[in-house]
Structures are given as C-alpha cells and as structure tokens.
C-alpha cells in the first residue's frame, strides 16, 4: 500500500497537475489542427520534458497524446480532414454525419468512446504489464533476441500493404543505429573520423525531424488550399450517448480489445488500429450498407480503438523496452534519460513512478470528458489559427528543441536531414514507423544476438532450445512466412 500512496503523492502535486493541464490543452490543440499529429506533439514535448522530474515529464506525454488522438476527430467532423492520422479511418463517415445535421452526435461519440477506449486500454496496461514482467524476469538474451525480431517483423509484415518497402525502411533504421562506437565490439563504425558520428546519432533530433519537420514540409506544400468549415450547431454533445452505449456495447468493447492488442504489437499504433477496427465493424455489422453514408457504428468502434491503442503500446515499451508505436518509440528514450530504464525490473526499482504513470493514464482519460467538451466548443476558433504563422513558429521551436538535447548545432543538422528523408520516404510509400523501430531497437538486436551466439558457441539451434525462446522464434518466423505463403497460394490459384 505504501507504493500506491507514494504514487498518489507524486501525481497529486500542484506542479504535476499544472503540467497535466497545460499538456492537455497543448494536446487538444495539436490534435485538432490538421497536419499536427500526436507523435509530433510528443516529439515537440521532449525538449521541454528534458528538464522536468520523471513523473511530470512522462505525465505530459501521456496526457498530450491521449487528448490529441481524441481531438483528431474534431476536424474530421468539421473540415473532412483528420486532425491526426488516427482519425483518418472514419473521417468521411464523421463528415457525412455532419452534413446530415448530426455533427453533434459524431463529436459526442468521438469523445465518449475515446474515453471508454482509453480507460479500457489503461486497465489492460495496469493488469498485463506487471504480470508480463514476472515472466520476463526469467528471460535471457535468446528470448530478448526473438522478442526484438518479432517486433521488427510484425512492424513490417502485419502493418503495411507493401512489406518490401517496409523492410527497406527497417533496414535503413538499423543502419542508422549501427553508426558510432556503441556496439558490442566497441569498434567505431561509419564515423569517418568525425567525433559527432562516433557518439552515434541522438535519436530525439531525428524524431523531431521525421515526425515534425517532414509533416511541416507536407503542410506547406498544400498551403494554398483553403480549409472549408462545415456549418453545424453544437449544443449538448452528450445527448443520445446513453442510447448509443446501450445499442452498441459490443462494438465499443471489440474496438477497445482490438485497439489494445494492435497497440501492444510493435510498429502498429493508433492509426492502424482505427483502420482495422473500422473494417471489422463494417464486416460484423447488421447494416454494413449504411457505412460511409453517415453511420455512427464504425465511429464508435474505431474511436474506442485508437485511444485504447495508445495505452496498449506502453505494455511492451515498459516491460521489454520494445515500443508498441511511434509515440512510445520516443517515450523509451525519455524513460532512459529519466533513469526509468524500461525492462521487467522497472516494477521493482521504480514501482512508485510506474504506478504514478498508471494514475496519470486514468486521470488523463477522465479529464478528457470536461476538456474535450471545452475543445469541441472552441473548435472553430482553434481551426481558424493561421497556418502561415503557426508553421514557422513550430519550425523554430523544432530547431531550438533539436539544439537543446545536446546543446549542439549538429542536432539541427540531423533534424533537417532526417526531416527530408522522412518526407521523401512517405511521399514514395515507404512507411516511417519501421525505420524508427529499427533505430530504437538496433542496438538491442545486435547485442542480444552477439551475446547469444557467444553463449551458444555459434550453434544456430541454441536459439530454439529454451521453451519460450523457441516459441517466440517460431512465432517470429510465422509472421514472415504466413503472409508470403498466402500470397504464393493466391498466385498459384
């Protein structure tokens, strides 16, 4: 009980509560403005959280992302533009509802089922993470090697239409992670005698580049396309919510379950969870013909799904140090900086901080109700924020943030270079998430492989000799071979 009391004291501290409120407002704004994403909010927050104690630092990211994923629904209803990619799956549906004069219902459902999904994901996180950690305590380098491989493979093969481009993206990320002295042999690689390169790349400026700068370039490319706002009256957004909950309880639950699972799967986050839940909702619906014409059912399921995915992604991030989505890929770096090294022992060494983070998850999702209503009420003002002012200011903020991590201009160089790379990649259909995962996990992959190889004296079969390692290995190989075999089977018919 002592730990829980400590956790409460950590969270219900005026400074932490102030940080949570400010991050909530920031998250709602970033989420509501199309072109600014939840991942970008995280990347922008990191330089600021750099200077905070651990709990408020993590709390600000948790709160801002939860709010941003909900707020992404707002411009879907009003502009037919998703505020974040996680709302893209049902943007047309939400806009169709607004056109029918039911914008209030769409916004209300977005809010209420975001909260339900978020709380569900949080409950699973709180229950599953410590239990998994118990098991993970017995893991050796063999298990960790397969876990990393499983994560990397599922990022490439389960989440994207074109696995080949996913692999290229992943290999690029791994290559970046190989730069510098930080490898099992301690041998400088790809440094060209340069001291900045010998230390390896700092990931945070890279992430600011890949998630914020690339997005700004894309935004500016469409700067001469005006936003047209749908006219709709918004009164009480809670009207009709109880009826919806009674009519679609299965949909809300199914969305939350699938969302949490997709979130926990490395490489796939809230956006993919929303697409899959929307498709599932249509498939199992009694009225699939209504989908696309302004039908609330899919919004309920996918809206719950994307918020539950956020919490689900923290499960592998906390227990194994393997990020479940792009947001936790950034978070893992913050955890290390704050001395909250992810891994199964985090629940013993930093129990109070971890329970404090769990409390923040609950608090953030509950706060979403009142703050979400406020955001919906002032949506029109937020969406009128002039892009020609907003984008330059954010960009200067990115520059200073990239500089601040190491107090070095090299950070800004990295930010610009990787911002361009990410922009070109996405324009050509190469997903960015596997590259990020490769950068974050590259060192862990190599280290566990080399130490396993040394332990096994070079015998490959040793990787399958321990029961859990063997099962994980077979699972990882199945993730690769099943889609390939299915494709071959289809081609043969």
């Amino acid at each position, binding site marked *: 009980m002592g730990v829980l009391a400590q956790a409460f004291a950590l969270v219900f501290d005026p400074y932490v509560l102030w940080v949570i409120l400010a991050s909530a407002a920031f998250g709602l704004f970033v989420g509501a403005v199309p072109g600014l994403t939840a991942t970008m909010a995280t990347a922008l927050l990191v330089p600021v959280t750099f200077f905070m104690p651990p709990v408020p630092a993590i709390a600000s990211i948790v709160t801002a992302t939860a709010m941003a994923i909900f707020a992404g629904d707002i411009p879907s209803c009003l502009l037919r533009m998703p505020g974040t990619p996680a709302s893209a799956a049902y943007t047309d549906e939400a806009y169709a509802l607004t056109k029918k004069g039911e914008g209030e219902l769409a916004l209300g459902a977005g809010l209420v089922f975001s909260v339900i999904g978020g709380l569900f994901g949080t409950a699973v996180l709180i229950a599953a993470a410590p239990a998994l950690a118990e098991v993970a305590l017995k893991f050796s380098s063999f298990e960790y090697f397969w876990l990393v491989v499983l994560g990397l493979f599922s990022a490439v093969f389960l989440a994207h239409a074109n696995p080949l481009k996913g692999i290229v993206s992943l290999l690029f990320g791994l290559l970046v992670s190989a730069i510098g002295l930080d490898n099992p042999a301690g041998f400088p690689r790809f440094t060209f005698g340069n001291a900045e390169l010998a230390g390896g790349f700092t990931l945070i400026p890279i992430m600011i580049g890949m998630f914020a700068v690339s997005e700004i370039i894309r935004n500016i490319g469409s700067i001469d396309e005006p936003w047209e706002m749908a006219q709709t009256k918004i009164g009480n957004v809670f009207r009709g919510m109880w009826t919806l909950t009674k009519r679609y309880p299965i949909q809300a639950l199914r969305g939350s379950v699938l969302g949490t699972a997709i979130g926990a799967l490395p490489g796939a986050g809230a956006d993919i969870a929303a697409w899959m839940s929307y498709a599932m909702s249509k498939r199992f619906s009694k009225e699939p013909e209504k989908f696309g014409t302004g039908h609330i059912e899919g919004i309920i399921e996918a809206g719950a799904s994307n918020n539950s995915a956020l919490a689900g992604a923290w499960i592998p991030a906390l227990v194994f140090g393997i990020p479940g989505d792009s947001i936790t890929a950034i978070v893992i770096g913050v955890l290390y900086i704050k001395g909250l090294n992810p891994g199964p022992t985090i629940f013993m060494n930093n129990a109070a901080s971890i329970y404090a983070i769990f409390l923040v998850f609950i608090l953030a999702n509950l706060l979403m109700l009142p703050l979400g209503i406020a955001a919906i009420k002032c949506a029109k003002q937020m969406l009128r924020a*002039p892009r020609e002012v907003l984008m*330059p200011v954010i960009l200067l903020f990115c520059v200073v943030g990239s500089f601040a991590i190491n107090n070095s201009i090299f950070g800004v160089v990295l930010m610009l270079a990787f911002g361009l790379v990410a922009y070109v990649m996405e324009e050509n259909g190469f997903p960015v998430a596997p590259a990020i995962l490769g950068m974050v996990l590259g060192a862990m992959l190599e280290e566990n492989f080399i130490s396993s190889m040394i332990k096994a004296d070079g015998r490959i079969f040793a990787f399958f000799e321990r029961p859990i390692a063997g099962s994980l290995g077979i699972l990882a190989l199945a993730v690769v071979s099943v889609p390939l075999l299915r494709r071959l089977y289809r081609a043969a018919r």
Partner: protein
Amino acid sequence: MPGQKFGPAWFPGLIAIGLAICGALLVRAGLREHAPLFAMPQWMQRQRPRRAVAMVLAGLVAYILLADALGFHITGVLILAVWMRALGASWRVTALVAVVATVVIHFAFYRVLRVPLPWGVLERWAF
C-alpha cells in the same frame, strides 16, 4: 576483430545484403509497372508552395550556418520573418510574431530551461 567470429562488421554486412536484395526487387517491380524514373509531387507545379518549401529548407540551412555567428535572436527573427512572408502573412503580423515568438522561446529555453542559445554578435548585451 581477431579471434571473434561475430565482429563489428557482421551486423552492417547483413543490413547491406538485405538492402541490396530489397533494392533489386523494387527495381524489378518498378520496371514491370513501367513506372517513371522520377516523379514530382503535385505542389511542385504551383509557384507559391514551391517557393514556400524552398524558403523553409533555405531558412533551416541558414540557421545551421549563421546561428553561432549572428546569435539565436537575430537569426530567429530573420528566418521567422522570411518563412511567414513566404507563406503569405501580412507585414504587420510578420513583424509582431517574429519578435514575440523569438522572445518567448528565449525566455522558455534560455531562462527557464537554461539551454545555452548562442548570443553571437549580441554577446556583450547578453542578459
């Protein structure tokens, strides 16, 4: 590394092999579809976005080259002004926001977070 089977070259070597195979497969897929060698994004054909993106990139490069010499404050105001004008903000808004945003970032990062933003030519008036 002598005496060690799996040295530092092993991991990058594997990556290189993987990239080579994927590259070859992508080229084959591209040839099959008769895809164009190079395609420009849509906004490249329109003048305002093209100039705006060029200005953004030029501004970032300028910051990297000039920040140490000119200092954060002058460079910050200048590139903000260039960016906002390129995106179509009025002169009044540009002047106001460029100065206010730079001052706010100065206080947030230099004062509160203690990031040593360079002063450059303003060194002797540093506060």
